């Protein structure tokens, strides 16, 4: 039985999950374990002037860690070293960590927080992108700018006075919480002679490994990071867990005991990274038929108080900003700026949902002004094989976006619904809308080359194979697809493959579990590594070229008997022909792209300003689908998050503090809020990845925002208050747009 493409393959760790026996970090207890918590700033910007410990509390029972207890460098290792693990003097955002406390009793620990008082000298904070750009205060570097990019193709300035139509627009998107159902958590053990070990919920064990070395000033082999079953990530457990692992380990080192730190939901929602809010200004020039002659896009994101991963998020948002369209003259300028919000960070889509929202909304607006349909404006501009993207990347595959779009329109019954909706008067108004887009798989440009990911395969004495990779299972199906790929490649059974728990002492660094890269890039490496494994057995003469399953398994057993161990590794090598100029942002931005058209059918109730999504269609070309059920599950889940992003989920900040840090008042879609989500895969262009698989994890986050807003705009087409240019658009926001006053 072929396993790749077979939906009958069961999720590798599925039984443990459906029976409740899968072990997440909060399910683990250790002997003498104590609990840790974090004391945080209650201002957004200023300096610490005094810290008081009230003498009514017996502090001798507590372990207290301050910045002065840090043995190494007090900086979270990411792109820059600007963010401290613990603030010593300067405060740059609300809820910034200042002190760590640990105690054997959780309730006493919680109660003790009230007995610490911190005094500050206040400084004026910045909470707004425009104020940051205008340098009302300088809060980071010498101009508040974390990073800028520019992509230039042709010269838009030569086109403006020749164009039949020039359309300008400006768009905004809000922050969004990842809202994995398992909060962030870690357990750490540390000692001066044995080093540091942490267990926890995470996407990227080697990011944490890299971050703990300088914090403790210890060599690589003295730091060990182990991933426990992880209850969702979506980017929210990409960079932040390094901070929490550091905190738990600092308390463990000082107390000499295992320390568990589990965030409550309210702490997790208040302090961990969220999707970057954005502003986009777009100016396009078109000929009389709507063909794009020039595009000028200014894309700005709010990075929050520290740089974290903002430059990389900005990069992806910038490259995706011109969409899947061909335009000879394109200029994209982008900026990530500092504010005194808690740092924003990785979230599924990584900048692309923001810039794609702006462009897809803009094209609908432009079509209306030009007097053509949203379908026409896109079909006249879709990228085709042989054309180049804004970065100058030559499209070598037959994309057929027009066919992808046609299928989505047909499935949502677009033209019939359009006609029906023409006659409606309210108060229930229906609308249909869609978005077309692409998502690049894997790291941008030369990213994969620099990562140089490594995977391994180890034979076991019972003739099975263990996958060795730092890539994490976070619900998306890593364990299952890795097993399918290796088993098929070696003609073994699914049960013959096991996947090692990600543990930096046992698995190589296969790169972070991000960027829709796990299946395509790491799965591809495992496919190659499988060949190496077989070749090793054949070279040893224990395996003949033609062999059966049982001969293969027997050869593994014999090899181990004779030589002690069979373990092979494969390192990523960039395929020839991929050129990327990081300075000028020219060349092959991504090895390949997934292409998609998403369509939404909505109803707006003018009495309550509520929007309901009635039907959602997602058509995508993703190369080979490795596991149809898991892949559809990825798309459906991403779309539900995208629906939330569009009409339900709003992060409310007041003076830099997240005010709705509860599931009660931050509303993610429930089972009653989701429409039927209908997913269709087109399997072609199978030139990349294992068995031809492209990345799919982030793609579904890109389309729902603009598709739903385009449908809402369609429903409201007879009002004069349009266009809709912002997400999220909750009932109170829509009331504001339509009635001129926010509720």
């Amino acid at each position: 039985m072929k396993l790749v493409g077979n939906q009958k393959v069961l999720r590798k760790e599925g039984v443990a999950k459906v029976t409740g026996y899968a072990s997440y970090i909060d399910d683990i207890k250790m002997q003498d374990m104590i609990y840790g918590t974090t004391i945080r700033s209650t201002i957004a910007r200023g300096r610490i002037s005094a810290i008081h410990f009230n003498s009514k509390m017996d502090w001798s029972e507590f372990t207290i860690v301050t910045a002065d207890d840090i043995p190494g460098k007090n900086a979270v290792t990411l792109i820059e070293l600007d963010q401290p693990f613990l603030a010593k003097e300067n405060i740059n955002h609300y809820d910034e960590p200042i002190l760590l406390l640990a105690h054997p009793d959780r309730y006493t620990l919680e109660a003790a927080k009230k007995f610490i008082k911190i005094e500050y000298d206040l400084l004026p904070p910045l909470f707004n992108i425009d104020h940051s750009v205008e340098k009302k205060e300088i809060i980071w570097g010498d101009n508040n700018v974390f990073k800028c990019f520019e992509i230039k193709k042709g010269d838009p300035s030569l086109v403006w006075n020749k164009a039949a139509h020039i359309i300008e627009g400006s768009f905004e998107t809000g922050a969004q919480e990842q809202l994995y159902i398992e909060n962030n958590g870690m357990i750490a053990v540390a000692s001066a002679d044995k080093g540091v070990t942490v267990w926890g919920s995470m996407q990227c064990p080697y990011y944490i490994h890299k971050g703990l070395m300088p914090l403790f000033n210890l060599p690589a082999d003295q730091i060990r990071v182990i991933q426990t079953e992880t209850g969702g990530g979506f980017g929210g457990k990409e960079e932040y867990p390094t901070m929490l692992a550091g905190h738990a380990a600092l308390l463990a080192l000082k107390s000499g005991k295992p320390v568990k730190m589990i965030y409550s939901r309210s702490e997790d929602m208040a302090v961990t990274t969220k999707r970057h809010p954005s502003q986009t200004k777009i100016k396009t020039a078109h000929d009389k038929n709507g063909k794009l002659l020039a595009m000028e896009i200014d894309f700005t994101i709010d990075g929050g108080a520290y740089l974290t991963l903002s430059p990389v998020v900005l990069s992806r948002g910038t490259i995706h900003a011109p969409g899947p369209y061909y335009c000879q003259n394109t200029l994209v300028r982008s900026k990530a700026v500092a504010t005194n919000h808690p740092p924003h960070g990785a979230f599924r889509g990584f900048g692309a949902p923001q810039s794609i929202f702006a462009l897809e909304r803009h094209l609908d607006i432009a079509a209306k002004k030009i007097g053509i349909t949203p379908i026409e404006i896109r079909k006249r501009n879709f990228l085709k094989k042989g054309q180049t993207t804004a970065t100058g990347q030559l499209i070598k595959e037959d994309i057929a976006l027009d066919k992808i779009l046609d299928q989505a329109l047909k499935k949502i019954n677009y033209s019939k619904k359009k006609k029906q909706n023409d006659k409606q008067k309210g108060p229930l108004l229906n609308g249909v809308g869609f978005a077309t887009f692409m998502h690049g798989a894997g790291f941008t440009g030369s990213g994969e080359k620099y990562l140089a990911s490594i995977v391994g395969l180890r034979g076991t004495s019972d003739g099975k194979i263990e996958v060795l990779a730092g890539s994490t299972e976070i619900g998306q199906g890593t364990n299952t697809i890795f097993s399918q790929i290796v088993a098929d490649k070696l003609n073994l059974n699914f049960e013959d493959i096991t996947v090692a728990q990600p543990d930096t002492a046992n698995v190589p660094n296969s790169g972070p579990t991000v960027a829709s890269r796990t299946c395509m890039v790491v799965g591809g490496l495992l496919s190659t590594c499988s060949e190496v494994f077989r070749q090793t057995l054949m070279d040893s003469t224990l395996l003949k070229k033609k062999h059966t399953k049982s001969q293969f398994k027997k050869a593994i057993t014999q090899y181990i008997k004779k030589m002690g161990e069979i373990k092979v590794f494969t390192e990523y090598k960039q395929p020839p022909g991929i050129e990327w100029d990081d300075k000028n942002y020219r060349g092959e931005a991504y090895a390949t792209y997934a292409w998609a058209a998403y369509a939404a059918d909505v109803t707006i109730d003018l009495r309550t300003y509520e929007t309901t999504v009635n039907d959602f269609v997602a058509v995508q070309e993703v190369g080979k689908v490795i596991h149809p059920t898991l892949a559809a599950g990825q798309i459906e889940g991403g779309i539900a998050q995208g629906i939330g992003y569009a009409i339900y989920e709003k992060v409310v900040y007041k003076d830099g503090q997240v005010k709705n840090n509860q599931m009660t008042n931050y509303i993610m879609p429930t089972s009653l809020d989701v429409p039927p989500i209908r997913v269709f895969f087109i399997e072609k262009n199978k030139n990349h990845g294992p068995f031809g698989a492209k990345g799919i994890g982030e793609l579904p986050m890109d389309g729902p925002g603009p598709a739903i807003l385009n449908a809402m705009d369609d429903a409201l087409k007879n009002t004069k208050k349009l266009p809709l240019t912002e997400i999220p658009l909750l009932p109170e926001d829509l009331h504001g747009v339509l009635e001129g006053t926010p509720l």
Partner: protein
Amino acid sequence: MKEVKINCTLNGKKTSLQAYPMERLLDTLRNQQGLTGTKEGCGEGECGACSVFIDDQLVNSCLVPSLQAQEKKITTIEGLSQNGKKLTKIQKAFLKYGGAQCGICTPGMIMAATELLKRKKNPNKQDIMEALSGNLCRCTGYMKIFESVLKALKMSNT
């Protein structure tokens, strides 16, 4: 306040819990009884990850004082499968049809689906959507969960 003795039937076994009367049933089950299949997602009754049965009623154990377990029958996710030995048809369907992804909401979701099927022999999709609306899932978009419950209806009990 002192800990009290609470007698109950836990997953079919006579058990006596030792807990503060107002201690959350969630904590008593997890910390004292080691039944960690019941998860905490929000601690305020919004997400349903901590769903258990008291007698046959579905409750959020993060909102239930342990004292309420007195003389009651408590069932957790571990109890459904006889401690992992035999999957119920709902568990089998979740496994087969993609109802579980990261798995953290899964125990609660399966408890809620089990309660629905006890209450209603042939629920339709709307019944399922309503019955699961107190259980949040961030991974699946719910489609595969609905499908799992619908498919479970057609599976035999063996």
